[in-house]
């Protein structure tokens, strides 16, 4: 039985109990921080207490993804004059080679397609949109096509195998 202060109000014990609990919790946090510091210090690869550069986080990816159709590199739709062809690769790859008449809309794995680029695609009046990317796994062309479709562009396709499939045999092309 703990001693009670003479003349203390009825809530005194309860208040002291709450205060004691909070102090105990704070002590546990302090001791935990000490244990964390010791454990981190003896690690072979300690984590620095202050990160010096931003973490490369995977996401956010809140963009809606729509249905798209995969077409082959030889599909006549690609050469159709009413089709808008989009290259989803970066500028360096685009400069090196791109399909004649293709418009570059680089796919960013983290950020959504800029509104202006999306508006350009929507305003093109094309009957179909064909996207090709790096042909990797995952393929940037397929991902961009899904994003465009999810954001309201209709009749979107992507080239199976991407730019390497379109280039065909030769340096950087499909065998």
């Amino acid at each position, binding site marked *: 039985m703990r001693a009670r202060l003479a003349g203390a109000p009825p809530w005194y014990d309860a208040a002291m109990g709450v205060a004691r609990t909070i102090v105990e919790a704070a002590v*546990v946090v302090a001791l*935990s921080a000490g*244990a964390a510091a010791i454990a981190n210090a003896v690690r072979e690869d300690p*984590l620095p*207490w*202050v*990160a010096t550069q931003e*973490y490369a986080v995977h996401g956010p990816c*809140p963009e809606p993804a729509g249905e798209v159709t995969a077409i082959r590199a030889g599909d006549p739709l690609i050469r159709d004059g009413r089709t808008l062809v989009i290259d989803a690769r970066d500028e360096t790859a685009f400069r090196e080679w791109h399909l004649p008449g293709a418009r570059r809309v680089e796919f960013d794995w983290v950020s959504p397609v800029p509104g202006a680029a999306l508006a350009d695609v929507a305003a093109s009046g094309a009957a179909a949109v064909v996207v090709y990317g790096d042909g990797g796994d995952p393929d940037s062309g397929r991902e961009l096509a899904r994003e465009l479709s999810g954001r309201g562009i209709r009749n979107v396709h992507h080239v199976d195998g991407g730019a390497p499939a379109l280039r065909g045999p030769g340096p950087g092309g499909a065998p």
Partner: protein
Amino acid sequence: MIARVTPWIALAARLYLGAVFIAACLHKIAHPYAFAVDVATYGILPLALVNPTALVLPWVELAAGGMLVIGLRVRAAALLVAGMMVVFMVALGVALARGLDISCGCFASSGAEADPISWLTMARDGAWLALAVLVIVADRAPIGLDRWIGRRDSR
């Protein structure tokens, strides 16, 4: 009847929460970098606080979980658990409101596909918060170090 049973329900809740928090901290303690990435992915804390959080939080989980299991300073441990659950729920709520498709990071860094955040995660955390409050309010430490220490002190 209820008054007699409630402390035993609180005891079960105490042991369950303790086991959950011990299980939750092990991967984070072993892989602090992976947990730091999980913390950073929520995009709530400034960069300077990401690593300290990733380093200290799992040890607080371990301490609170261990204290609940062995029955040492049960109310303080349950208060810590309740506080952590509130923090986790706020972080989850912000992430869900932003539409982030990320890993929960609650137990192991298994990626957004295997361990995605959702409103179910929020409901689960809410249930654990309720259990922690039950322990704070109703636990009389029928089993544990607190009772043993209390008996020793009263001799």
